[in-house]
């Protein structure tokens, strides 16, 4: 096997790459032609910056069918969004049910003793009526159900329509970690009864690193985690009560938000369903070929409707770290290996503590690149 001169990037679940050209262009324009701090001045450049932020807020609300663009909050990443949501929503003594192959971005804030929240885990794989399962673990103090929309380990997609209906029936606020789901599955805040949606901008939404979103449905109130200047109500010591100002202290990432807007627009132009279908074809191509290689274990849900375009695998007798190293050094293939910051997910699928190798194509991944990856895995597994 010869070294591929062009890198084959299959780590789009960590961050999507390459980004659409429009993303870099929008960021360049924001820096070179606008430059000013949005909401911090009345001159033309500051107003243009404010307008860019405003338009991106409206775009994001439309993309997720959120009821109020004022409740679209820009954050640095999904982890920040989740921390803002969890620390801003719960009070000491509350009980919360968590469901799904959780990421440390949810587990760690919930287990912070200062938060003082009791956590129950619900293992549910779309096999039993969820309303009954929730009733089994719900207490008088249960305020919310947190679900990881899609696993970054095995691509398990939790059906938000079903979950949203069940949460509503049980009177629970549904908090969704959409770090992997956004851009890889349809999300509709209104239809799916999502109370709080946390997403990152740099994965499926095709934006740059350093961007994230926190979207609140009507009636949801959060205490601000970060306090400071908002460019409004400057004569008051308390944070403003109105959104988005309440949750957006400090200067916003103008170039990043410009890039995020361009990413979402590109995704809308391509069509969400079409772009998911394309990634799914690449994933199925790789999965089908790897399933024929002896000694390979695959982790991807059997039901098509319960998966996003990524899967994990391992090769019997070879450390995943070694596989990743060989993919990188011998074949110029970029895959993330290990626990993927989600040890619970690995426990659930039975790959803890060794972890797995993850295949995560992007919208620009070609069939030829996938063939190169398959060939590389065959060689590593000793089939060539």
């Amino acid at each position, binding site marked *: 096997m010869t070294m591929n001169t062009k890198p084959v990037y299959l780590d789009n679940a960590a961050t999507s790459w390459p980004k659409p050209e429009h993303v870099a262009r929008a960021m360049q324009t924001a820096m070179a032609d606008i430059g000013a701090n949005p*909401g911090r001045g009345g001159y033309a450049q500051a107003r243009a910056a404010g*307008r860019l932020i*405003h338009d991106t807020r409206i775009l994001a609300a439309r993309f997720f069918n959120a009821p109020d663009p004022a409740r679209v909050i820009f954050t640095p990443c999904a982890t920040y969004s989740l921390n803002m949501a969890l620390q801003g929503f719960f009070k000491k003594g509350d009980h919360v049910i968590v469901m799904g192959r959780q990421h440390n971005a949810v587990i760690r804030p919930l287990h912070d003793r200062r938060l003082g929240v009791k956590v129950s885990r619900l293992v549910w794989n779309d096999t039993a009526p969820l309303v009954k399962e929730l009733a089994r673990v719900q207490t008088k103090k249960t305020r919310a159900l947190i679900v990881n929309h899609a696993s970054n380990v095995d691509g398990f997609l939790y059906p938000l329509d079903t979950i949203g209906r069940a949460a509503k029936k049980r009177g629970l606020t549904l908090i969704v970690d959409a770090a992997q789901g956004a851009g890889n599955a349809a999300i509709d805040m209104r239809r799916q009864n999502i109370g709080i949606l946390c997403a990152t901008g740099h994965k499926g939404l095709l934006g740059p690193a350093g961007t994230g979103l926190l979207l609140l449905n009507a009636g949801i109130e959060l205490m601000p985690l970060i306090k400071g200047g908002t460019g*409004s109500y*400057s004569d008051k010591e308390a944070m403003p009560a*109105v*959104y*988005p100002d309440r949750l957006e202290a400090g200067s916003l990432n103008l170039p990043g938000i410009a890039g995020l807007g361009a990413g979402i627009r590109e995704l809308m132009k391509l069509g969400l369903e079409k772009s998911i279908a394309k990634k799914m074809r690449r994933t199925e191509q790789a999965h089908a070929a790897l399933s024929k290689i002896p000694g390979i274990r695959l982790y991807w849900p059997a039901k098509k409707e319960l998966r996003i375009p990524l899967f994990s695998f391992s090769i019997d007798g070879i450390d995943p770290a070694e596989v990743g190293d060989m993919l990188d050094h011998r074949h110029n293939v970029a895959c993330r290996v290990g626990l993927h910051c989600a040890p619970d997910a690995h426990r659930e699928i039975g790959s803890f503590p060794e972890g797995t190798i993850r295949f995560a194509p992007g919208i620009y991944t070609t069939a030829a690149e996938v063939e190169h990856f398959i060939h590389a895995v065959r060689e590593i597994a000793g089939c060539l």
Partner: protein
Amino acid sequence: MPVGTLIAIFDTTYETLRAEDFFREAGVVFRPVLKPRKIGSACRMALQFGEEALPSAKAAVAQGKLALNAFYRKEGEQWQKLD
């Protein structure tokens, strides 16, 4: 550049930007300005427009369900809040 004797102040930058869209749609000729300090110390943007556009501006506020703080009219050196 239109110069008017009226201004509309909204609760946040977000609402002011929404107001710009609704004013434009309603045909209100306006100019974004910094809120006069005589009205209050809080930093905020305002939309300045002419007397003749007040009915359209009010209609735009109603149409967009805008979080209007208040309309003000300049009388001499003072800004008077409109009912």
